[in-house]
């Protein structure tokens, strides 16, 4: 791509795919608005305070609009953060202190407001508790909004005041940043830090916003306002592209758009091979509004509904009602086809505390306190979620999917809790789907070795290929230094998947695959050969999977499979599969 040496191209890891063109907004570590200190006569103090009140009202209006946007986009439960910000904005103590300071020093209101708010920021930053420290970001955000309203005297819808499609560049982003930014004019994210599988990356992916992480020195090399091309499909960021490159990328963006339109147009077609094998094609989602994408691309069901976000976004454990409202919305929207609701798969890699417990800084979070382990250790959390899922099942077709099971006792204990909750609901006369299915994720080698013991206790298996690969090859998939160890096409992984599928079928239960692997054509050949019952992928991949399945023959895949199982080197397997795709 690089044809001219004077154009800088930065490399990064693609955390969320897509190609976009826009102007840069760079969040430097300290980019506070510069506020001059000017002396003012005493008789103008009240006028200045009126200006501050007016600015605060303007910001309150902005926040109300933002709250509505977030509520519409993500669901009302996610807009809590704005409620807290509004309370900070409307704090009367600030006005009192501003007036007192101005009477003493005779300085302008903008300068005073910054001094007063900064005093709070400093005190709260000194707190030992991580939680309270995190609130400082909210206070700073309010301060910036008010100062901007005071200085520019115009309403800006966003905290950044962006009027053009913008690519947001920062050292790092947290989930609150992403949530605030998606409702603004942001079309791409670039960070210096971060891994491909952090939950911020997953969030960008679910929102269909391209994101590049690990882009070294980005905040130093890029200036706000520069034009950028973010090519997250190829892990590239082009600074100040010339006309030729812009044209080339515009053509590419156009082709992708047309392809996407074609995929959407095929949304009501089934994924059937040329020789009549039907694969159930479902979608993985994390947030309620994604049901729109599932419909747009024609997902037959939701094969994996990740339920972590409500827990991550809120500053407390969500209540049964909050969970129920969200699940009901999703289950109702996908009523006919069904939703596999996975119980929380949270752990030390995604969060810092759980309820009253600090789980930050585990030495080995991937193998630590997470998912079903938390649920069985803290039954009230599990029971609350099971109640919410069961209640939502009365509004459509839901099933419960249990993650991270490593041994049989965990499954039987989980099933016991589910039964207990059903009895309680019966007693309380609360409706739910009495024939609700319960499935389990297959993610650990211990379960694969012992798969028969699980097959007669659940209604379906769903293979989480990411975790299964990670745990089988003992490789941290977030660690750049060992990325070459992580490989779905390892013969051991293929054998395991085959064993799971065959055992499921022997016991008469369907076997699905819901890992990232399922969006790759190579893997689809393997799944067709094994007669996997269905795959579940991110909504944007549904189209390409359907397209590939419709061009394939199940029988041919099966014939090649015997040869593939004889191969013992990963690269040989990949090359063999690649030849079949062409």
């Amino acid at each position, binding site marked *: 791509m690089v044809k001219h040496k004077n154009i800088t191209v930065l490399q990064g890891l693609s955390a969320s795919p897509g190609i976009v063109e826009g102007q840069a907004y760079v969040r430097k570590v300290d980019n506070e608005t510069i506020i001059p200190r000017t002396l003012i006569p005493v008789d103008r103090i009240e006028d200045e305070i009126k200006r501050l009140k007016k600015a605060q009202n303007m910001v309150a209006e902005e926040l109300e609009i933002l709250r509505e946007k977030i509520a519409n986009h993500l669901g009302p439960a996610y807009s809590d953060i704005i409620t807290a910000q509004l309370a900070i904005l409307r704090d009367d103590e600030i006005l009192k202190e501003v007036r007192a300071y101005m009477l003493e020093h005779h300085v302008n209101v903008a300068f005073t407001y910054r001094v007063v708010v900064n005093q709070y920021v400093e005190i709260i930053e000194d707190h030992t508790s991580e939680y*309270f420290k995190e*609130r400082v970001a909210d206070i700073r955000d309010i301060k910036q909004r008010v100062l901007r309203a005071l200085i520019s005297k115009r309403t800006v819808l966003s905290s950044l005041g962006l009027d053009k499609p913008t690519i947001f560049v920062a050292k790092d982003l947290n989930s609150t940043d992403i949530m605030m930014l998606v409702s603004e004019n942001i079309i791409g994210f670039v960070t210096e830090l971060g891994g491909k599988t952090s939950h911020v990356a997953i969030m960008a992916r679910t929102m269909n916003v391209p994101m590049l992480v690990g882009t070294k020195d980005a905040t130093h090399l890029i200036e706000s306002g520069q034009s950028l091309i973010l090519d997250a499909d190829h892990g590239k960021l082009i600074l100040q592209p010339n006309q030729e490159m812009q044209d080339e990328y515009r053509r590419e963006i156009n082709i992708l758009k047309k392809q996407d339109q074609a995929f959407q147009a095929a949304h009501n077609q089934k994924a059937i091979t040329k020789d009549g094998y039907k694969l159930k094609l479902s979608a993985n989602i994390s947030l309620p509004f994604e049901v729109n994408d599932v419909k747009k691309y024609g997902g037959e069901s939701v094969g994996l509904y990740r339920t972590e976000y409500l827990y991550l976004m809120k500053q*407390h454990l969500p209540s049964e009602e909050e969970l129920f409202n969200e699940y009901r919305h999703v289950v109702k929207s996908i009523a006919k086809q069904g939703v596999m609701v996975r119980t929380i798969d949270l752990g030390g890699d995604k969060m810092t*505390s759980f309820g009253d417990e600090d789980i930050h800084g585990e030495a080995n979070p991937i193998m630590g306190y997470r998912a079903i382990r938390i649920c069985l250790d803290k039954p009230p959390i599990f029971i609350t979620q099971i109640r919410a899922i069961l209640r939502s099942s009365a509004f459509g077709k839901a099933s419960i999917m249990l993650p991270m099971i490593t041994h049989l006792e965990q499954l039987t204990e989980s099933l016991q809790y589910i039964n207990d909750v059903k009895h309680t609901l019966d007693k309380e006369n609360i409706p739910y789907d009495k024939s609700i299915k319960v499935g389990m994720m297959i993610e650990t080698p211990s379960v694969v070795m012992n798969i028969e013991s699980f097959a007669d206790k659940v209604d379906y298996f769903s293979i989480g290929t990411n975790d299964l690969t990670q745990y089988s090859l003992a490789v941290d998939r977030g660690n750049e230094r060992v990325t070459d160890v992580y490989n779905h096409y390892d013969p051991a992984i293929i054998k395991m998947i085959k064993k799971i599928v065959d055992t499921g079928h022997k016991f008469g239960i369907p076997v699905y695959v819901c890992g990232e692997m399922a969006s790759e054509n190579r893997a689809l050949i393997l799944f067709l050969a094994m007669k996997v019952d269905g795959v579940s992928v991110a909504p944007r991949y549904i189209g390409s999977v359907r397209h590939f399945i419709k061009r394939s023959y199940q029988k041919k895949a099966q014939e090649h499979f015997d040869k593939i199982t004889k191969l013992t080197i990963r690269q040989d397997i990949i090359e063999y599969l690649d030849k079949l795709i062409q």
Partner: protein
Amino acid sequence: MILKEVTILNKQGLHARPATALVNTAAKFKSEIFICRDGKKVNGKSILGLLVLAAEYRSKLLIEADGSDEKEAIAALEQLVLDHFGMGAGS
């Protein structure tokens, strides 16, 4: 003026959401309301003040109300604390 000691029952302490609830309740009364902890005294109608207290789980707070409706204010605030600020007993 009335004083009342309460204990924070929320596991995550008096964070933004319960603090917002406390401020909103306090604002309904004409009385002046202060919250004291470890020698710090802040306006009970100010969320920033409450965040400055950084009251964690099980910390003790002294509520002070002074005005025509001080009795009602104290009763309402105590109830709010006992109710986990309306966020459920598990929070």
